[in-house]
């Protein structure tokens, strides 16, 4: 909406999700949908986040737990393969890390300013669960 003039809005507390008429939206991938400028998909809320998840692809088993549990649909998965995280909409809640079942985890939380390459390079080793106890 930031590109609209002060008087360019429709009456009612109402916004259009898409530009123009849509068809088979459930069968269209997010990146291919004609989202309108006022749709929240086109707005970044990345600055709400103080911690971010980092994804280590090598350990991921594509179980889709993170995809199912993410409350903001910010896990990007295609053909049941985990691709990455939508960092424009992830709020950094950490639920994806919590539900990740691999050892070591394929997702870990870091401070927002942390360097992703560095963290991936020193990713934790597999832990012996018996030793932990």
């Amino acid at each position, binding site marked *: 909406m930031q590109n609209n003039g002060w008087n360019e809005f*429709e*009456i*009612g*507390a*109402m*916004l*259009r999700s898409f530009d123009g008429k849509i068809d088979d939206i459930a069968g269209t991938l997010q990146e291919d949908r004609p989202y309108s400028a006022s749709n929240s998909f086109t707005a970044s809320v990345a600055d709400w986040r103080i911690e971010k998840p980092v994804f280590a692809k090598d350990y991921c088993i594509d179980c889709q737990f993170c995809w199912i549990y993410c409350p903001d649909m910010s896990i990007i998965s295609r053909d049941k393969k985990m691709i990455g995280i939508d960092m424009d909409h992830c709020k950094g809640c950490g639920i994806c890390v919590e539900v990740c079942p691999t050892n070591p985890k394929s997702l870990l939380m870091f401070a927002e300013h942390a360097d992703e390459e560095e963290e991936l390079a020193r990713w934790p080793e597999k832990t012996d669960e018996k030793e932990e106890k």
Partner: protein
Amino acid sequence: MAFDTMELRDVEVWDGNHAAAQALRQCQIDVVAAYPITPSTPIVEGYAKFLADNYVEGEFVMVESEHAAMSGCIGAAAAGGRVATATSSQGYALMVETLYQASGMRLPIVLNVVNRALAAPLNVNGDHSDMYLGRDSGWIQLDAYCPQDAYDLNFIAFKVAEDHDVRLPCMVHQDGFMTSHTAQGVVTMTDEVAYSFVGDFKVMNDMLDFEHPVTHGVQTEEDWHFEHKARQHHDLMTKVFPKLEAAFDDFEKLTGRRYNMVEKYDLDDADVAVICMGTSVETAREVAQEMRAKGIKAGVLGIRVIRPFPFMQLKEALKNVKAVATLDRSAPGGAPGMLFNEISGCLYNEKVRPMISGYIYGLGGRDLTKQHLVDLYTELEANVGAGQVLTPLQQYIGVRGPKLSFL
């Protein structure tokens, strides 16, 4: 359509509640979400019965509170239905939060308000406290004086509220018990004629249009909220009166019954006038007639449209009157009554203006008798003779004990 029409006599004996329920049936309301409360219960009960008996095609949603009732109406209206409900008093008070949602979302819901006092002390009888509570909520508010009005104004309410240039919700007020439970002759329309007046509901930005999805009830902060509210108020102030006028004209052509923003009775040559709402208008008309026989040039001005407030029409109607009394049927809560304030405001900049004095009356269903009005007209006539208001600006009518007055 799969529902039955109802054969009505030309004149039916209906109370205000049944008149409103019949109007909802004839408008073919899609959804009524309701939490019944005295004295408005028979309106939604009536709709539910018509629905159960296949006289209407729609949905009756029994909810857990009046807050939920209006919330349900908001959802159904946003989805694209013709929607109505009814309430009174405490239920209305609980509904207030959602009243502002309905008007801000520009949803043309019709709410029948059967006016009743607000607790404490608890009271089921008629006064205008609930009506006054919603007067800043952004709804159009129409006032019925009798069951005939309650019937007719429902059709006018839908017609105006649903107009795409307006898209604002509308209340139809009637006095608890005095109108709602008092049976009178009501001139009816056939189902076909009645429905033709309101016509088919024309959707706008409805949520059930899956090819054009919309989000209703969005958030705006300091960057947009003010523009939304300013436009909403602008539309309420400028677009409603012409549409109401057109609807009143159309309705008169259809039925011969004429409604106006302000209802004038013997006002054009009046020296003294009473300004009031609801059933009191009819009592005041009778007394004014009797005062005329005694040589006092008395008139009555009834407010038909409470919001938007008919400033211009009032200014014009009162320009030759010498002394007016405003009758507010609501506890003023630390100020003059609403009518006293609004009418003073609309007259203040006029070079020639009537003297004005305010009266609080009828709280909790206390009767306004003809004798009260005789005394009132007599006071106004004395003000005219003296050239000044001789009484306090705020007096109480009909309360026991020493005479109560302020200001």
